[in-house]
């Protein structure tokens, strides 16, 4: 490895180096959400991260290796521990269920180095956070980061019900004047038009939550004159199951059948081919792959490629996108 200082803790290849950790605490927050805390097996501090960063958790589920991204929600100033909160998704592909049902305190796991695709813009005069459900997690770290530097922030947090309001008590107790909570079951909702009207010049808006909420907030902000550069969002897509399909990997001279429950990226990894990735959720662009030949239909599901790139049939994001047809050849 040339060009890297011998004592550097930085990963040699992005996404490749792992942090060996032990599960140090598991806390059930409510019927759906559980917090997992990790410490490094070698006892050293974790790498620094900034609020909004995520880690990809490696789960060894029997023969199957699952890799799911979760936002780091612990205090960026507290590097002895990383914490994530996992919402159980009974209809999902099984990663969250595995965490909830199989992982015990003391288990050894691997985490990726933190990557931040949802950074605070610290030039902002004010940070306005809009969270929906488990979308609260990146804001928990960002709030701690801002509190440490006296930042100006305000949180509007929408949850299904008081029973499912993860971290509501902590937030309303510590920051009663900065936190507003809205419960669906009490027919409360964020008055977005009013909220966005009159925010001080230089405010940045951040939204994390279900797709519908993200679209609503971004659309409303644009319509009322908020520039794109001031509106940030994070949405991790989970790969969706689909029909199996075959892929030829030209450089590796391998062919692989992508299973119904498996993503294209996972199938490539299963063959031992080293494919780049960071977020595994269609957001970061790291896994962008050139298509050399195809005969069929692309099922593009990412937020990364532009519409014309998707139509061109020359690019695919294997973390979330699929293919239906006869021939697919990738430059991998």
């Amino acid at each position, binding site marked *: 490895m040339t060009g890297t200082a011998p004592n550097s803790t930085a990963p040699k290849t992005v996404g490749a180096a792992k942090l060996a950790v032990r599960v140090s605490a598991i806390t059930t927050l409510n019927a759906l959400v559980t917090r997992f805390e990790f410490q490094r097996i070698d006892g050293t501090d974790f790498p620094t991260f900034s609020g909004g960063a995520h880690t990809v958790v490696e789960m060894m589920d029997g023969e199957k290796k699952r890799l799911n991204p979760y936002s780091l929600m612990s205090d960026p100033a507290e590097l002895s521990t990383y914490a994530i909160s996992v919402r159980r998704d009974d209809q999902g592909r099984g990663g969250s269920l595995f965490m909830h049902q199989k992982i015990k305190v003391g288990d050894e796991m691997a985490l990726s180095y933190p990557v931040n695709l949802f950074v605070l813009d610290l030039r902002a005069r004010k940070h306005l956070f809009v969270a929906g459900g488990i979308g609260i997690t990146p804001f928990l770290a960002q709030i701690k980061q801002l509190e440490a530097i006296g930042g100006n922030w305000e949180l509007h947090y929408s949850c299904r019900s008081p029973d499912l309001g993860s971290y509501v008590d902590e937030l309303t107790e510590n920051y009663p004047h900065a936190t507003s909570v809205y419960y669906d079951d009490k027919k409360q909702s964020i008055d977005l038009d009013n909220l966005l*009207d009159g925010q001080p010049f230089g405010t940045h808006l951040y939204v994390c939550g279900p797709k519908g909420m993200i679209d609503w907030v971004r659309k409303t902000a*644009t319509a009322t004159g908020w520039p794109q550069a001031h509106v940030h969002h994070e949405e991790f897509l989970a790969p969706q199951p689909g029909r199996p399909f075959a892929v030829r990997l030209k450089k590796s001279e391998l062919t692989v059948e992508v299973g119904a429950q498996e993503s294209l990226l996972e199938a490539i990894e299963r063959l031992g081919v080293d494919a780049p990735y960071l977020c595994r959720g269609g957001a970061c662009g790291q896994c962008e792959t050139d298509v050399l030949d195809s005969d069929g239909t692309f099922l593009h599901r990412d937020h990364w490629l532009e519409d014309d790139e998707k139509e061109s049939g020359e690019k695919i994001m294997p973390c979330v996108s699929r293919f239906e047809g006869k021939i697919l050849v990738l430059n991998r």
Partner: protein
Amino acid sequence: MSTFEFPPSIRSRPVYCVLQARPGKAHLMIADAEGAEALIDLALRAPELMAKAHVIYIPKATDFGAALKALNPAQYYEGPSYSAAVSRIKRVFLDASMGLQIYLSGTEGLMGQALSEAMQAGYDHTAIQTEHRGSLARRMQCVHCKGITEDVSNDPFQCSHCGLNLFVRDHYSRRLAAFQGVCIDAEEPGNVPPSKELYS
């Protein structure tokens, strides 16, 4: 004609567009000299903006003031110089809310300085529209003494502070709102090529 097509240059050099109406709660329009024409053109295309517009104008020996005023903006201010207007501009940003749209037109010095004020108020520079009109003169910083010389239209030119002969670069500082001027005869003092008008 007050428009000029700048030849392609290095990445640092600002590029300008044609002002487009954008949805907004309020509209701030800052112009100098022939920049007024860009605002008049914008108002022709989107007259609805003017009821929520604040126009700040520095005529610089032109006479577009009456035509701008006739657009009937919600607020109109005319000042003798950018320095005279800047305290008002700072105040506008201090009081403004998100949803304000910013339109700048005229000379590069005016647009650059107003953009820098907006940036200091926490606003992203990519969200600000700029349309160049009129003079090609530049606001230059001497990289040696750091002094700013306004309205430089010849290359090379003499720094108005330290007197060095400076080459007009396209290398631009968004923060300083100035192009960089670099000593042209450092190795052989006195060997200065004849000064030419910019883009002539």
